[in-house]
């Protein structure tokens, strides 16, 4: 459906505001009433002298009639329509809605942004729901409020006419519910803050390790030196490591970090990246080291190396994520299982075979990433003991422009909060139900 400029809608609104009859305005501008009617219903495009005449008769600037609604507002409305899977005919009327009812359009856009924000909150919290009845109760209230807002907004934004009394009522309800959402959200944040402060031991040793590394920028400069400190002394002074278990994990991590740094010294690695780019295979060949080592080194480059955002995920043979370096837009669950479609798990299923794949995250922004993964034995080979594999996945932003036509794998955060309805790998229903 072609998008029409909505100058006509604004002319009509302004004329009605002034209490002018269509015929009177048409006469003042030297056109027929039937032609004005076509203009007001956006069936004729106008500009130039006629627009100026109409603007003068309506006592407004021509630009106030001809300029469309705020682009950001239209974008927000279209995102809201897309998120709610509004039918195409209604979605195409976003500009008309913004033009005719700017206040309501702002309200709907604000509510859509709020709902998106709350859905992200739901995603973050859902992993903990099963273990926290207080949180479950709070989320019930929150989702009920979201439901009420969504229903009322859909009614207002729908194609069918709603009489003014009901419009006012739903507007009031949305307003009330938005205040409830604010209160509920603040209560949740307070609860979580208090819980974290009161029960620091609740964080797992792995979370402590990741918090420490995050604070260090994921780069341990001391371990890059020719004469590094021992892993034990390094972790001993790290305040973020609050338990013996966390310090032990961190010491193991530091030991491996040092070995990686010896295999791929920082200066040489920088030079090689300057020649090859962030190409793990080329770097692996250049240094004669395995891919997983290259992945880990790329993920721990200092910011000044200019590698840009890099994520890393490591899982053990059970598929449990044992290490996460986050990258914006790529969800890796803190609790519970990750998306089965992650290339990380493809690699786990075919040890020693490198995997490269473009993946697309579920959600409004659907960011794409270039991933490399490999599964290798997690410890030195031993003929007598079991071989336990460990898979490592490097996550980079998708190169721009895309370098090749590659198949894109649709992935998500974790099934519980993944909005993909028809995923072949779904383990359980999502709490983010399909939209209307």
């Amino acid at each position, binding site marked *: 459906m072609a998008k029409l400029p909505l100058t006509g809608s604004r002319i009509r609104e302004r004329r009605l505001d002034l209490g002018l009859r269509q015929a009177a305005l048409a006469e003042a501008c030297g056109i027929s009433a039937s032609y004005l009617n076509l203009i007001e219903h956006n069936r004729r495009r106008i500009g130039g002298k006629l627009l100026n005449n109409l603007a003068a008769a309506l006592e407004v600037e021509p630009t106030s009639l001809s300029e469309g609604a705020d682009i950001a507002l239209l974008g927000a409305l279209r995102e809201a329509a897309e998120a709610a899977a509004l039918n195409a005919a209604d979605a195409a009327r976003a500009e008309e809605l913004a033009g005719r009812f700017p206040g309501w359009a702002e309200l709907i856009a604000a509510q859509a942004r709020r709902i998106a924000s709350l859905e992200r909150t739901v995603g973050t919290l859902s992993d903990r729901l099963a273990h926290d009845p207080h949180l*479950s109760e709070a989320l019930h209230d929150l989702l*009920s409020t*979201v439901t*009420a807002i969504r*229903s009322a907004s*859909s009614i207002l934004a729908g194609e069918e006419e709603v009489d003014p009394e009901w419009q006012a009522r739903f507007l009031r309800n949305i307003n009330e519910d938005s205040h409830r959402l604010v209160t509920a959200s603040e209560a949740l944040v307070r609860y979580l803050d208090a819980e974290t402060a009161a029960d620091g031991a609740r964080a797992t040793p792995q979370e402590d390790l990741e918090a420490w590394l995050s604070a260090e920028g994921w780069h341990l400069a001391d371990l890059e030196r020719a004469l590094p400190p021992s892993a034990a002394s390094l972790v001993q002074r790290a305040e973020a490591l609050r338990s013996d278990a966390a310090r032990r994990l961190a010491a193991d991590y530091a030991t491996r970090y040092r070995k990686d740094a010896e295999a791929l010294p920082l200066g040489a690695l920088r030079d090689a990246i300057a020649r090859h780019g962030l190409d793990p295979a080329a770097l692996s060949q250049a240094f004669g080291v395995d891919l997983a080592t290259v992945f880990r080194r790329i993920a721990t480059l200092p910011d000044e190396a200019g590698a840009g955002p890099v994520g890393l995920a490591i899982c053990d043979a059970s598929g449990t994520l044992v290490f996460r370096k986050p990258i914006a837009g790529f969800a890796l669950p803190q609790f519970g299982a990750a998306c089965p479609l992650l290339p990380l798990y493809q690699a786990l299923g075919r040890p020693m075979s490198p995997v490269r794949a473009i993946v697309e995250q579920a959600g409004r922004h659907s960011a794409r990433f270039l991933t490399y993964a490999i599964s290798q034995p997690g410890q030195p080979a031993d003929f007598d003991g079991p071989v336990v594999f460990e898979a490592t996945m490097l996550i980079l932003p998708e190169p721009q422009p895309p370098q090749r036509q590659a198949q894109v794998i649709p992935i998500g955060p974790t099934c519980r909060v993944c909005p993909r309805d028809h995923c072949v790998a779904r383990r*359980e*229903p999502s709490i983010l*139900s399909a939209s209307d």
Partner: protein
Amino acid sequence: MPGRVLLIEDEPNIIEAIRFILSRDGWTVDVHSDGATATDAVAQRAPDLVILDVMLPNRSGFDILADIRAGDATRDLPVLMLTARGQSKDRDMAERAGASLFMTKPFSNAEVVASVRQLAGRAEGP
């Protein structure tokens, strides 16, 4: 097809929205908000179908549904259950308790109307 729906829900603004969209679809919507007296309301109002929230003041929706299924006159009454938790255990409990359908909040208006129509169709049956 449209007939009488009894909405047992305690969130006023959800009530208002559901009442509006179902009324617009031709349904007569009665509302009851107290869990403790909901079973009596079902008996007195004799709806064609019930929309029942799981979390209600004074009594759980599961218990109310159990009463509905135990009553001779209401045993086969279509019941659409609403839950905000979206957890598997809620769905399992709803199915075990005899819910005809269930929806997870936040649901869409279209889902509500489609579910009610579906249940009413089933109720009229062959």
